[in-house]
């Protein structure tokens, strides 16, 4: 019995637990790459991060807005597409394959594609806008347009993930409640609201929470699309920690930021799970 988890536990210990302990230790020390004396400084880094204006007024709001908008939009879109695909029509298989396409695209590649499409001089988006008589936007040079492109990329990448799991869920639902609803003369909306959603409840909650936790630590698409810019206005939490540790070479402060983020997401993840679970419970 112990033997069954030994390899997994050993790898987890060496490559996840040990690094986290070292990171926690580093977050209490003055640990810079060019001056590795590692003096103990206590909670100084935590204080510095928690009073950093950039962290409080840009990074944290960005991260939470990103998480809420991106997960909300992909959940609604994903559910809509799953419902669309759940009934047979001609070409259903082809449509399904096309809709699931982003699942195989690396986030880095998706970011490159969107960056090219939203290029201010040669991107197709501005070409079309100008063709229609609107003014082209310098998408990546303004805070909110750049942020919107990041969110759009994330929605594009992860909607199919929701579609896939919700479609699998829809197809495994029992038929009887739907037949009963039809006999009782329930319309489409009422059937959806009072039969489909309650039956899919647990899948919806689990998918949304897992995705929210992953959205919180998004790194690759921001790094490739904007690198946190213009200025530092689109930095998310992972990028903030990375910039401190590897660009400013202040490993102690970077680790402290990473620890604070880990603490936030553990609390938020748990709270989100409870809240969502109760929300869906109440709605039925």
């Amino acid at each position, binding site marked *: *019995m112990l033997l*069954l988890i030994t390899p997994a536990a050993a790898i987890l210990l060496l490559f996840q637990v040990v690094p986290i302990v*070292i990171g926690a230790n*580093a977050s209490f020390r003055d640990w810079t790459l060019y001056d590795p004396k590692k003096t103990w400084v206590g909670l100084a880094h935590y204080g510095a991060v928690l009073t950093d204006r950039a962290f409080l007024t840009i990074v944290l709001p960005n991260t939470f807005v990103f998480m809420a908008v991106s997960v909300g939009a992909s959940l609604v879109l994903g559910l809509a597409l799953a419902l669309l695909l759940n009934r047979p029509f001609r070409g259903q298989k082809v449509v399904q394959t096309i809709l699931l*396409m982003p699942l195989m*695209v690396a986030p880095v590649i998706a970011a490159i*594609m969107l960056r090219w499409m939203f290029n201010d001089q040669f991107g197709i988006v501005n070409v079309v806008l100008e063709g229609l008589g609107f003014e082209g936007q310098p998408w990546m040079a303004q805070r909110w347009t750049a942020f919107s492109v990041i969110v759009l990329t994330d929605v594009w990448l992860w909607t199919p993930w929701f579609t896939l799991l919700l479609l699998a869920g829809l197809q495994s639902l029992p038929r009887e409640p739907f037949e009963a609803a039809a006999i009782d003369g329930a319309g489409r909306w009422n059937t959806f609201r009072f039969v489909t959603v309650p039956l899919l409840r647990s899948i919806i909650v689990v998918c949304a929470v897992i995705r929210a936790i992953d959205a919180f630590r998004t790194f690759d698409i921001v790094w490739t699309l904007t690198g946190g810019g213009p200025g530092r206005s689109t930095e998310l939490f992972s990028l903030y920690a990375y910039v401190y540790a590897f660009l400013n070479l202040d490993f102690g402060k970077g680790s402290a930021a990473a620890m604070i983020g880990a603490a936030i997401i553990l609390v938020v993840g748990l709270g989100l799970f409870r809240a969502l679970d109760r929300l869906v419970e109440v709605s039925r």
Partner: protein
Amino acid sequence: MSLLRRGLFFVTVGVACFFFAFPVLWLGLTSLRPQSGVYYVHRGTEFTLGNFAHVLRDERIVQAFVNSALISTLATLLSLMVTVTSGYMLSRFRGVLSRAWFGTIYVFRCVPYISWVLPLYFVTQAWGVYDSYPGLLLPHIAVHICFFSWLMKGFFDAIDPSMEHAALLDGCTRWGAFLRVALPAAVPAIAALSVLCWLFTWNEFLFALILTGQRTPVITVVMAQFVHEMGIEWHLMSATAILALVPAFILTLFGQKYVIRGLRI
């Protein structure tokens, strides 16, 4: 009315397909344009395969493809070996150890990658595996352990244990019951996880960015460097990106049915 509804339905489907397919198609079109025409993708009629030839002549890119393919394949094999047993244990055994292990992987699933990949940089350097295959492989396996053990537990939960009990009564050892009865029954789930695991590893970026350097380039990092160092060479970048999509595309095409079947349990 019904005609209107049908029309509306197909317009919605059309818009959705366009939204999800267009970026990939546009990238494909860009990759086929010569350098002189790349900034006016929408106008030209001149097409070339020269970009692909150019990219494939670049040793560093070819090296990155080979590294990514090898690491993804090895990570898939090794991750499944350790998570199948761990998921089986979670599903079949009750008790303190089982609960503790479940709690551990549940908590570690939530820890943001950045919190352990930063110090991992020092750990791999101290152990002399930085910028090498094991230095990237083992952390990748660690990434997969939590999520996949959790999924494997779900799969084994759905398999009726009475067959294993029968095997035990007939004189099979516990290991024998696992290897001869439970494992073959879990093959569809294992197939689904292999596809997912290969794709995750092939597409992963943050670990590769921090844990590899000059000696072991991988494809996602090389592409991101394109953006930052040679941000203007869109024709070469799209060709590289399309080449990186091909293996994932083939795998998804053949693996799709296993994934959908495997996840439905």
